[in-house]
């Protein structure tokens, strides 16, 4: 999988760290993002249930489980 951050994603980084991102770390970030994208693609295939989706939409993750 070869993935590159979109223009919107680069803009999100630049909004936080400014122009420095284009000088120092852009290549390292692009490489790391390529690896990260594989993990994101894996998560996209998870067969989540409606209950999983509802739970994930809650603001807080409640620890524990009931039988």
């Amino acid at each position, binding site marked *: 999988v070869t993935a590159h951050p979109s223009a919107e994603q680069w803009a*999100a980084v630049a909004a936080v760290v400014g122009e420095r991102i284009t000088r120092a770390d852009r290549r390292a970030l692009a490489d*790391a993002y390529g690896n990260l994208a594989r*993990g994101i693609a894996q998560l996209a295939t*998870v067969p989540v249930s409606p209950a*999983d*989706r509802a*739970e*994930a939409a809650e603001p807080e993750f409640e620890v524990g489980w009931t039988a």
Partner: protein
Amino acid sequence: MTSNGGSAAQPWQLDITGASRLIAARKLGVTEYTRSLLERIATTDPALRAWQLVDEASALAAARAADRDITRGRLRGPLHGIPFGVKDVIDTAGVATEGGSRAYTARIPGVDSAVVRSLREQGAILLGKTVTHEIAYGQNVPPTQNPWRPGRYPGGSSAGSGVAVAVGSAPGCLGTDTAGSVRNPASVNGLVGLRPTTGVIDLTGMMHLTRRLDQIGPITRTIEDCSVLLDGMLSPEGRRRLNAAEGGTLRIGVDFEHWREAGVTDQVSDAVRLAVKQLTETGVEVVEVSLPELRLGLPVTLLFCLFDASREHRAALNERPDAFAVGTRVMLELGHLVTENDLLLARQARSYLRRRIRETFLAHDLAALVSPTLASTPPPLGQLAADLTRDGAEADLSSALVLLSPANVCGLPGLSVPCGIADGMPIGLHLLGRPFADRTLLALAGRFEAAAGWRGLHPPCWYDASPAVDGGPDAEQLVAAEPLVEEAG
């Protein structure tokens, strides 16, 4: 002073419960004990670098105060007069807490973190701060050395806490565990490490990576010590939740396919299979299970860490970007490439993973899921890549997270206990438990510890100064024990 076994010994060699008994019986002065530990630090730390900062004057003042209290009959409990170390991401009043980072140089908290306050109120004595990977992210290489074999990975990110306990410069330390950082240094240093259930420790005053996964946990030399230190760390509500948890069954699950996917080496697999066999000989039943969903722990952990850490440390990144190690800085910046939609996928996967773990535990009536703590013995430091975004199949830090991260993702307790030696390095047995069943894990691990004979495992430098005091195997016994592990395969 006499040792637990009756032979002459140094106070620094005592474990928490041994020292506690002697202090309560007034056979060991707290000041004498604290001085012995400070001398042990002076002896070992120039080479091993476990300590970021030692607050000798305050420790001795607290020790003298504890001695006065005890002389007046005011013994507060089993932690009264017990010195401890704290990872450098946990706030200590008036003592620098810099997260192992130049970006936080001279950061001195005004108040203690909740967990340090709790321990001090029970009479425990802060020795100082232990070395951490920068902001506990695992991207730089701290100076800490593994006492079992210098030049090998000393554990992380609570490396200093693990090494300090292993060499006897503290009987117990606090670490933090976002994806295994208490259990991992416990494993590679031959110690016990517990990641308690999420919510039972008050994390106020902790320098966070991600509040979704972070936990503070104890690192000790024995299960009994781990239990005592945990009790001292619990919030009132945490204690209530643990007390209300069911006792649990005597049945454990193993998923050998997950071990294979995680890249567990033959020698580690052999040692842990032998440990499982030893557990069955104590009456524990073993069930093979299939939980391929455990592989989701790593990508979920990475997305939560990246997204949240970039926001936790945003101000420092903006103000002092060059003060971070390059690897840490890139990870903090990378977090801003993670989208809200990516985060939602991770949250959904977390719910799915927890549901599948719950279903498996309930279907087989399990008390714990058992695995190696780490897939291999510690590699040489120079061979350890720090790229957390890989898939865990290589000898890098992500492979160390594959087996441990499901506990953090799902808020479950996880415990590592020594279970063997290979290549002269310790191996850990990991137990993942039901929520709030931390004491069940401790009981199971205690059963194993008593049966297997690995209690009191010490690195070679332990024996440089004087003999062991706690009945643990001596150096010759350790050498003799190695073939036992190798023959198991």
